[in-house]
């Protein structure tokens, strides 16, 4: 099982000029998750439980996945998901219980989900966000769009700096709420 402290930085970026006010994109907001752990599991072998079985195991242990990205092609399956940092030990136990090979698991113990909304199904906004990450060497561990937002997982410690950089390419409302949620919801049983 590979546990990493920092994701791989992004390099070799095309030069991008600072944006004019008129080319910045107006959005509704940005928010940060609490500190999470990021788990990626790949191509289970015959000895390992399937990802469906792993999900069942995590559910039976009341472990929430606030983010999931899953892809399957022929026999190759890759799944990335986020969990509360408090659940990391129990998830590692579940992976062990499901006989996941250490080489097929990658854990990043400190990530945050940056959610930017609305995306308006815009390739330009999505590209601009990814470009900002690449230009500033911020890692992208995973991302998914939802009905209205782009949710992107990066190193937790970079979230504030990333928001500063994104503010150079998007226009936030003047009365924007704090990026960090001031409450936490937990399902007990």
């Amino acid at each position, binding site marked *: 099982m590979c546990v990493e402290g920092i994701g791989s930085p992004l390099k070799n970026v095309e030069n991008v000029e600072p944006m004019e006010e008129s080319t910045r994109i107006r959005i509704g907001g940005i928010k940060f998750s609490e500190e999470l752990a990021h788990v990626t599991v790949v191509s289970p072998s015959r000895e390992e439980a399937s990802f469906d079985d792993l999900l069942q195991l995590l559910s039976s242990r009341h472990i929430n996945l606030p983010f999931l*990205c899953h892809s399957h092609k022929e026999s190759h399956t890759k799944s990335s998901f986020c969990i509360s940092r408090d659940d990391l030990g129990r998830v590692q136990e579940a992976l062990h219980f499901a006989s996941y090979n250490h080489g097929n698991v990658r854990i990043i113990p400190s990530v945050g989900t940056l959610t930017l909304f609305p995306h308006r199904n815009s390739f330009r906004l999505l*590209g601009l966000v*990814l470009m900002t990450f690449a230009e500033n060497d911020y890692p992208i561990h995973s991302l998914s769009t939802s009905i209205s937002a782009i949710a992107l997982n990066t190193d937790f410690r970079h979230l504030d700096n990333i928001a500063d950089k994104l503010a150079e390419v998007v226009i936030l409302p003047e009365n924007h709420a704090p990026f960090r949620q001031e409450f936490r919801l937990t399902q007990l049983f």
Partner: protein
Amino acid sequence: METIAVYWEARVKVYSLTEKPGLAMGVLFFPTQRTGYWSGRLMELEASLNRFELVTCHGAEEGRMQLSVVIEASGRDTLLKLMDDWLQGEPSAQFMIEEQVDLVFLHGPHFQDRFGIADTAFSALAKNNIRIMLSGCAGTSMYLVFAGDEGSTAMKILTDTFLIPTVA
């Protein structure tokens, strides 16, 4: 301050469950260092494809990313042509397109705060041997992509699995 609310449901409620059949899905594999280049190409797609239905991205093997884009089928040829051009200068990237895929998406209350939601959907589909090609779950949304001949079956299974409240 801590507040506890008690809420119980026999079946997981969703706000809506929607199927979009007959879409195309492009999958791009590229070195992480080339994220800047491909971000620029994504921005260029705005002019020709107009909009995406779903985009996901996560690490492929070490140092590589997998970017999946689901679009209207009418944009397939345009995307293929653009990718042909762009890949000329990017030999370390690979691109493939799935011609016919179906997208099913659902939204539900506090999905991001509750355990077992993804398991509910994945288990129900697995029991019926329906393979999920791609999934992105973030916020209150769950997006699922299926091979084109399986979307309607998946939709039926999910409709039976989740509860969509109706007004009497």
